C-alpha cells in the first residue's frame, strides 16, 4: 500500500512536469522525456469542481476547459457549462469505488483501444490509464484552443494523440488525428474509443440516456434492467460490404450518429462528426458493465473479416483476416454540446442537432397533411410459360392504372399527395445496371408515363419515380459481376441474397444481387441523370443508396472504406438533388440535407435494456422536410397507423398495387407486399386522411417540437402551435392528469384544455 502511494506520488511529479505549453502547431513531443515547465496556466479554482487540482486551461462564452495537473485525477480534464455551471468530467471522479466493473482502469481512461496480438491470436484491449499514463506515457500539450494528450503505450510502442478543443459553436471536440497515430512495432490499432466514460451518470442520479436506435429511444438512468444485454449497434447499420451468412434478428439500424445523456437538469449531447460510418454506439445501465450509466461510441480503424476457404469435399474452412493496410480515415471526432435548463431535454438536443445540420435555414414546408403512396410497377420472376420456366415481367400496376388510382383518390378529396412509383424503369425491373431512364414497356408507353406525371402535376400531387442506382442482379455479359460489383476485403465479389424468414440463412434459390462498385457507379449515375433530365420530371425518389453504407475493395489502388463509401453515396445523392427534387427512403443523417421528402421512417427496435421510443429523427426535420413512416397497410399494426402518424407529426403512407395477388410478387424482393390491393384500401385511405388532416388543423401545426413519454404510458407530442397530442397506444384505458384515454386513442390539448 505504501509502495503504491509512493509510486503515485512519483507519478504525480512526473505528470506535473509533463505538461507542455505550446501552440496548436507544435507537434514535437517525446514520450520518454517529460520535463517542460508549465508557465501559462492561470491558477483559477472553482467552487463547483470537487477535485481541487483542476486548473482552468481555456474558456469561451459557452464552456470552460479545466485540466487536472495534480491529484488523483491527474491527466484528465473537465468541462464546465457556463450557462448553468454544471461540470462534466472526462473520467468519473469516484471510479475507484466501482464494485461492478471488471476493469476499473478503463473507466479512468481517456482512450481505450484494441490491437491484434498475432502470437496469441487474440485481440487485446488496452487503456490509456493503466497502460500509458500510469507508466509515464502521457505527454500533455496546451494548444491555442484546447489540449492535446499524447498517450504512448510503451509495451506495444504505439502512440495515440487525443485532442480536446473548444469550438465556436459551443461544443467541445474530442478527436484523434489518425495519421498521427504512431505504430512503431508490429502491433496495429483496430478499434478505438474516445472518452469512454465521459457521458456517464451515477447510480443514484435521475435522468435518461438518449440512444439513436431507429428514430430514437430512451434508456432511463438506473432502470434496473441489469439482466439484459447492453445496447451495442453499428452506426448506419455498419458496413453492408460485410455480408453475414445469417440474419437472426430484426431490428432498426442507427440512422443518426448522435447520442445524449441527461441528469440533474443538464445534459450532454454528442454528435459523431467524423468517422460515424465506422463507429458503433454502446449504452449500458448501471450495474451491467460498471456502476455507471454510460453511453459511448467506438471507432473501427481497421477491419477484421472472416475468410472462408472452400476446400471442396472437405467443406469450408474459415478464419479471421486482419486488415494490415493503414486506415484511410484521417480523423475521428466527436462533438459534445452541454445543454441546460429547458434545453436539456430531447427537444433541446433535437434543436441543437438541427442547428448543427443547418436545417433551420431551409424553407418551411407547407403546413398540410398529405398522403404518401407507393405504387409498384413491375417485378421480374421465374414463371412457368407453357410448362417451361421463364423469367417473366409481372405487371403489378401499369402507368394507366396508377393514374386511375390517383384520380380515384382525387375524387375522395385528397388534396395533398406524393406518389412514389417503384420499379418503373425497364433496366431496374430487369435487374440490370441502371444507367438509362427508360420506361418499362410492359407498364405502358413513355407517353402514358409522362401523362401520369402530368396528371399528378396538374392535381398538385408530387410525383417521384423511384430507383436504386447501386444494385444490379442481372449481368449484361458473363462475369460482369467481377468487373462491376463491390468486393470485400478478401477481394471476393459481394453477392447478396435475401434471408429466409424461418431459419435466417441466405436463400440461395432466389435471385441474388450485387452492389455496383464506386468506380462504375459514378459513371452510371451520371448517365442515368442525363437521360432522366430528358423526361422533364421534377421529382425523383431514391432508395437503397439513401441508407446503406458499403466498403469496396474492387479497385486495389483506391480502396474505399466505409467512411468514404458513405461520403461517396452522399456526393451522388447531392448530384441528383441538383437536377430533381428528391424523395429519399429513410435516409441516414449524412444524406438528409438533400431530401425534399422522406418516406419510410423507421420506428425503434425495442431493445431489452431500453425503455421507450422517441421520435427524435422527426423532431429534427419536422416542419422543414415532409415525412412519413412505413406503409400502414404493410405494418404490423395497421389499426395504429393514424395514431402513430399523428404522434410523430408524420403523414400517412400506403403501398398500393392494382394486381395484388400473391402470384405476382412471390419469391421477389417485393414478396412482403402482401396486402396492397388498391381497390380494397382506397376507402380506408380516405377516412384516415380526413382524420389526420382534421387533427393537424385542430393542433394548428404539424411541426413536432417536443415529446414526452409519461409514467402512465400516455405519450404527449408537442407541436409548434402550442397544441398537444395526448396518445394512448396501449390496450388499456389510462387516466392521467385528468385526461382519460380509451385504448388506442388520442386527444388534443391546447392551452391546458382538452379540445373535444
Amino acid at each position, binding site marked *: 500500500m505504501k509502495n503504491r502511494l509512493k509510486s503515485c506520488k512519483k507519478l504525480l511529479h512526473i505528470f506535473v512536469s509533463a505538461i507542455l505549453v505550446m501552440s496548436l502547431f507544435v507537434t514535437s513531443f517525446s514520450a520518454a522525456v517529460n520535463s517542460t515547465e508549465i508557465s501559462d496556466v492561470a491558477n483559477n479554482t472553482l467552487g463547483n469542481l470537487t477535485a481541487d487540482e483542476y486548473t482552468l486551461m481555456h474558456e469561451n462564452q459557452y464552456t470552460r476547459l479545466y485540466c487536472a495537473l495534480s491529484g488523483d485525477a491527474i491527466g484528465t480534464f473537465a468541462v464546465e457549462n457556463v450557462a448553468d455551471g454544471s461540470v462534466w468530467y472526462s473520467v468519473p471522479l469516484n471510479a475507484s469505488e466501482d464494485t461492478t466493473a471488471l476493469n476499473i482502469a478503463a473507466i479512468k481512461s481517456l482512450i481505450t483501444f484494441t490491437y491484434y496480438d498475432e502470437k496469441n491470436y487474440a485481440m487485446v484491449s488496452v487503456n490509456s490509464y493503466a497502460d500509458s499514463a500510469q507508466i509515464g506515457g502521457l505527454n500533455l500539450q496546451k494548444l491555442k484552443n484546447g489540449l492535446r494528450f499524447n498517450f504512448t503505450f510503451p509495451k506495444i510502442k504505439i502512440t495515440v494523440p487525443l485532442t480536446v478543443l473548444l469550438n465556436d459553436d459551443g461544443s467541445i471536440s474530442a478527436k484523434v488525428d489518425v495519421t498521427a497515430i504512431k505504430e512503431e512495432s508490429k502491433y496495429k490499432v483496430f478499434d478505438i474509443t474516445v472518452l469512454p466514460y465521459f457521458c456517464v451518470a451515477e447510480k443514484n442520479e*435521475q*435522468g435518461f440516456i438518449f440512444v439513436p436506435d*431507429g428514430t430514437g429511444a430512451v434508456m*432511463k438512468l438506473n432502470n*434496473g434492467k441489469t*439482466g439484459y*444485454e447492453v445496447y451495442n449497434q453499428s452506426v448506419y447499420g455498419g458496413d453492408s460490404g460485410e455480408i453475414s451468412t445469417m440474419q*437472426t434478428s*430484426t431490428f*432498426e439500424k442507427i440512422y443518426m450518429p448522435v447520442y445524449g445523456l441527461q441528469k440533474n437538469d443538464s445534459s450532454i449531447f454528442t454528435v459523431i462528426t467524423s468517422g460515424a460510418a465506422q463507429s458503433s454506439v454502446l449504452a449500458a445501465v448501471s450495474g451491467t458493465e460498471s456502476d455507471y450509466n454510460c453511453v459511448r461510441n467506438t471507432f473501427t480503424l481497421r477491419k477484421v473479416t472472416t*475468410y472462408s*476457404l*472452400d*476446400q*471442396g*469435399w472437405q467443406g469450408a474452412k474459415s478464419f479471421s483476416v486482419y486488415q494490415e493496410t493503414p486506415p484511410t480515415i484521417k480523423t475521428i471526432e466527436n462533438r459534445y454540446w452541454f445543454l441546460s435548463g*429547458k434545453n*436539456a*431535454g*430531447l427537444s433541446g438536443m433535437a434543436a441543437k442537432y438541427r442547428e448543427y445540420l443547418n436545417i433551420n435555414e431551409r424553407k418551411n414546408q407547407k403546413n398540410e397533411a398529405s398522403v404518401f403512396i407507393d405504387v409498384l410497377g413491375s417485378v421480374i*420472376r*421465374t414463371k*412457368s410459360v*407453357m*410448362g*417451361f*420456366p421463364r423469367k417473366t415481367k409481372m405487371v403489378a400496376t401499369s402507368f394507366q392504372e396508377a393514374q386511375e388510382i390517383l384520380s380515384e383518390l382525387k375524387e375522395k378529396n385528397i388534396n395533398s399527395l406524393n406518389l412514389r412509383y417503384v420499379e418503373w424503369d425497364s433496366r431496374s425491373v430487369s435487374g440490370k445496371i441502371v444507367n438509362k431512364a427508360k420506361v418499362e414497356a410492359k407498364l405502358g408507353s413513355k407517353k402514358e408515363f409522362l401523362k401520369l406525371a402530368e396528371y399528378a402535376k396538374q392535381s398538385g400531387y408530387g410525383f417521384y419515380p423511384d430507383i436504386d442506382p447501386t444494385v444490379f442482379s442481372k449481368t449484361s455479359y458473363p462475369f460482369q459481376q467481377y468487373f462491376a460489383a463491390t468486393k470485400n476485403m478478401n*477481394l471476393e465479389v459481394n453477392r447478396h441474397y435475401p434471408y429466409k*424468414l*424461418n*431459419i435466417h440463412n441466405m436463400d440461395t434459390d432466389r435471385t441474388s444481387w450485387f452492389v455496383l462498385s464506386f468506380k462504375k457507379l459514378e459513371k452510371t449515375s451520371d448517365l442515368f441523370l442525363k437521360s432522366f433530365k430528358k423526361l422533364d420530371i421534377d421529382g425523383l425518389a431514391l432508395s437503397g443508396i439513401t441508407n446503406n453504407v458499403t466498403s469496396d475493395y474492387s479497385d486495389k489502388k483506391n480502396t474505399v472504406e466505409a467512411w468514404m463509401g458513405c461520403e461517396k453515396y452522399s456526393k451522388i445523392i447531392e448530384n441528383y438533388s441538383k437536377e430533381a427534387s428528391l424523395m429519399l427512403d429513410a435516409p441516414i443523417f449524412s444524406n438528409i440535407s438533400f431530401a425534399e421528402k422522406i418516406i419510410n421512417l423507421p*420506428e*425503434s*427496435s*425495442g431493445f*431489452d435494456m431500453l*425503455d*421507450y*421510443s422517441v421520435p427524435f429523427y422527426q423532431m429534427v426535420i419536422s416542419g422543414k422536410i415532409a415525412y412519413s413512416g412505413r406503409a400502414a*397497410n404493410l*405494418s*404490423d*399494426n*395497421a*389499426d395504429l397507423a393514424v395514431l402513430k402518424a399523428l404522434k410523430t407529426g408524420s403523414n400517412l403512407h400506403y403501398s398500393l398495387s392494382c394486381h395484388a395477388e*400473391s402470384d405476382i410478387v412471390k419469391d421477389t424482393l417485393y*414478396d*412482403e407486399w*402482401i*396486402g396492397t390491393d388498391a381497390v*380494397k*384500401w382506397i376507402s380506408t385511405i380516405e377516412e384516415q386522411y380526413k382524420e389526420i388532416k382534421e387533427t393537424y388543423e385542430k393542433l394548428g401545426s404539424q411541426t413536432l417540437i417536443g*415529446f414526452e*413519454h409519461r*409514467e402512465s404510458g400516455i405519450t*404527449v407530442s*408537442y407541436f409548434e402551435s*402550442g397544441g*398537444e397530442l395526448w396518445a394512448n397506444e396501449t*390496450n388499456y384505458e389510462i387516466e392521467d392528469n385528468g385526461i382519460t384515454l380509451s385504448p388506442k386513442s388520442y386527444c388534443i390539448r391546447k392551452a391546458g384544455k382538452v379540445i373535444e
Partner: protein
Amino acid sequence: MKKGLLSIFLCSIFFLTCAFTASAASYKGYTYDYWEEAVPSQIGYTVEGVYTAKDISSEIGDFSEPKDLYVSPENMIYILDSGNKRIVVLDKALKLNKIISDFTYNKEKVELGDTTGIFLDNNGKIYIADPTSNCVWITDENGVILSKLEKPDTDMLEEELEFRPQKVLVDSAGTVYVAAAGVYQGALLYTPQGEFDGFYGSNTVEVSGKLLLDRFWKRIMTNEQADNIAKYYPEEFTSFDIDEKDFVFTVTQTTSTKKKIKKLNPMGRDTLEAEKFGELESVPINGKLTDSLFADIVVSDSGVFSALDQRSNRIFQYDSEGELLFVTGGNGSQSGTFSTPSAIEVLGDRLIVLDSQKNNITVFSPTDFGKMVLEAVNYYTDGKYHDARSLWEEVLKYDHNYITAYTSIGKALMADEEFEDAAKYFKLANDREGNSDAFQSYRNEILQKNFIWICIAAVILIVLFVWLINRRKKSEKTKKEHWWISPAKFLFHPIESAEDMKRLNAGSMLISFIILAVWFVAAVLKFAATGFRFNTNNVDMLNLGLLFLTTVPVFVVGVVSNWGVCTLMNGKGRMKDIWIGGSYCLIPYIVSNFLYVIFSHFFVLSEKIFLDWILWIGIIWSACMLFGVLSGIHDYSFKSTVGSVFLTVIAMLIVAFLILLVVSLLQQAFSFVSSIVNELIYRIR
C-alpha cells in the same frame, strides 16, 4: 405556455417507470405455404409489455430461473420462481397479489427443490412438480403442504429409476397427471385421493430403418451382445396442458421430425390429424439441426393451441385441427424475443411467456389482424363458413398469403352453389380435394346445361372417326412402298415391321429424333401442364435439365446396353435399327402422356383411376411393342428376347452406376483443383 409545457416534460421524464417499449415488432411474420416454404405474413400478436420482477413490484426482487406458469380460471397468474424456491402470484393486471415462499409439511419447514411444474385444481390446491425432491407437492394458498405424490409402488417402473416429476396437471374429475423424466409408459395417473392409477397416453416407438436393422441383429446375437445395442423407448412428454373436455395436449422433444404435438382424448388416443408442427425447414448449425424443440404448450378455450419452441424461440399457434395460424417471437435481446423461454400460458386473449434466462415475462396481445383471424377461425371450426366469409375477405385485404382464408371462402362459395368461383378459391389455397368437389359440381352444371350440344358433338366425332378409318383403309390398299416404314405400322405389327425395316434399311433417323424431342416435350408438359388436381409439382420451380436426364439419356443408355448385350448374344440388330425401332416403341407411351395431360383438366380426384389407366395402357403397349421390335431386329426367339431384355436392364444399371462414379470422381477432382486455385489466389493477393 411553451416553457411550461417543456418543464412538464422535464419533470415527468424523471419518474417514468413504464415497463415496456412501444416499438416496431422485433420479429417478422411468416407462414408456411403448400410447398412448406416460409412466406411473409401479417403478424398475429404484438408485445403488450415485458416485465421483470422489479417492474411488477419492488417487493419481489428478481426472478431466478422461473420454470413454469399457471393461469387460474379467475385469471390469477402463478409464477413458479424456481431459483428462489417460491411462488409469485399476480392478478390479471400483473399487480403483485402474494408471494408464497414458506412451505410447511406436517408443521415442519420444507424447502422446495429445483421445481419445474405448477398447476392448480378446481379447489385451489397448488400442485408443484419437484424433481429434486422426487415428488409432487400439493399445497394450499398459504404454503401449507397437504400431501405429496411419490413414486408409485408398481412393477411397471424399474426399481432403480429415480422419480423425477417434470410437469403436473389435474383434470376436471380431480385425477392428477404427472409427466416424469425417464418414465416412458406415459403420464402417471393418480386418483384424487393420491393413489396410483396407471399410465396415460404413452407415445409409441417410432419405426425407423435403424430400429429394424437393430431388431434383425438382435435376433442373431447372443443375449449379452443384444443388451449392448441401444434400447428403443418411446419419447417421454416434455410438457402438457388440458382443455375443458379433458383432452390432453402434449409436446415431445423428439429429435427426429415426427409428430411433436399430440391431442390425446381421455382414452389416451391421439386425435390430431395434422402431422407436422413447428419449423418445417431446418438447417444444420454447429452440427445440430434447427428442428423445433417444444418446451411447453397451452390450449385456449376455443381449442386454439400454442406451442413454445425453445430452438427458434418462437410461439407456433394452431387452430383446433392443427392448421398453423401465427408464428410469434424470435431470438434476440429485444422485446418480443427470448433467450430461454420456459413456459407459456393464456390470459384471456393474451399470451404470456416466461423466460428463465432473461428472468422476465412477456405479454403478447393479438393485433387487429390476429383478432380477425381468431374470430374467423371460430366460425370456421363451427362450420359456419358463410358467417366467416366477410371476415376472411378482410383478412385477405391485409395478407394475400393467408391460405386458410381462401379455403374458407371456397367452402362458403360451395354452400352458395357458386362452384366455379369456389374452385378458383380452392385452387388459390392449393386445396386439391376442395377444388375437385367444386369442379365436379361445376362440371355437372355445364354438362346439364349443354347436354344437347354435347350429344351432337359426340355424334359428329364418331361419324368423323368412322369416316377416317374407312378412308385410311382405302388409302392403305393403294399405298406404295415408302422409303421409310410408317411408325403407324409398327404400332400394330411390331415384329413384322422391324424385320422389314432391317431388311429394306428403311428406318428414319429423322423421325426417331422427332419422336425423342416430342417425348421430352411430353415429359415437360406432364410435369407442368397437368391439371391442378393431379399435379402436386411446384410448376415455377421446374428444372429442365433434370427432367431432360430422365428422358433422352435413359433412351441412349438403353440402346447402347441392348446393342452391347445382343452383340454378345448373337443378335442380328445394328445399333441404328435398335435406335430407330426403340424410338418408335415410345409412341404409345408418349401419346398416353399427352392424353393424361389433357384429361387431367377435366377429371376430378375420384376419377383418378381412369387417368392412371390411360398411362398404364400406354406403358404396356410400348412394352409389348418394344418386345416385338427387339425380337424382330435381333431375330430372337421368345426365350432369348426375354433373356436379352433382362440382361439389358442389368447392363443399364451398370452403365448408370459407372456414370455416377465418373461424375462424382470428376466433381472431386474439380473441387480439388478449385480449392487449390482458391488457396493460391488467396495467398497471392
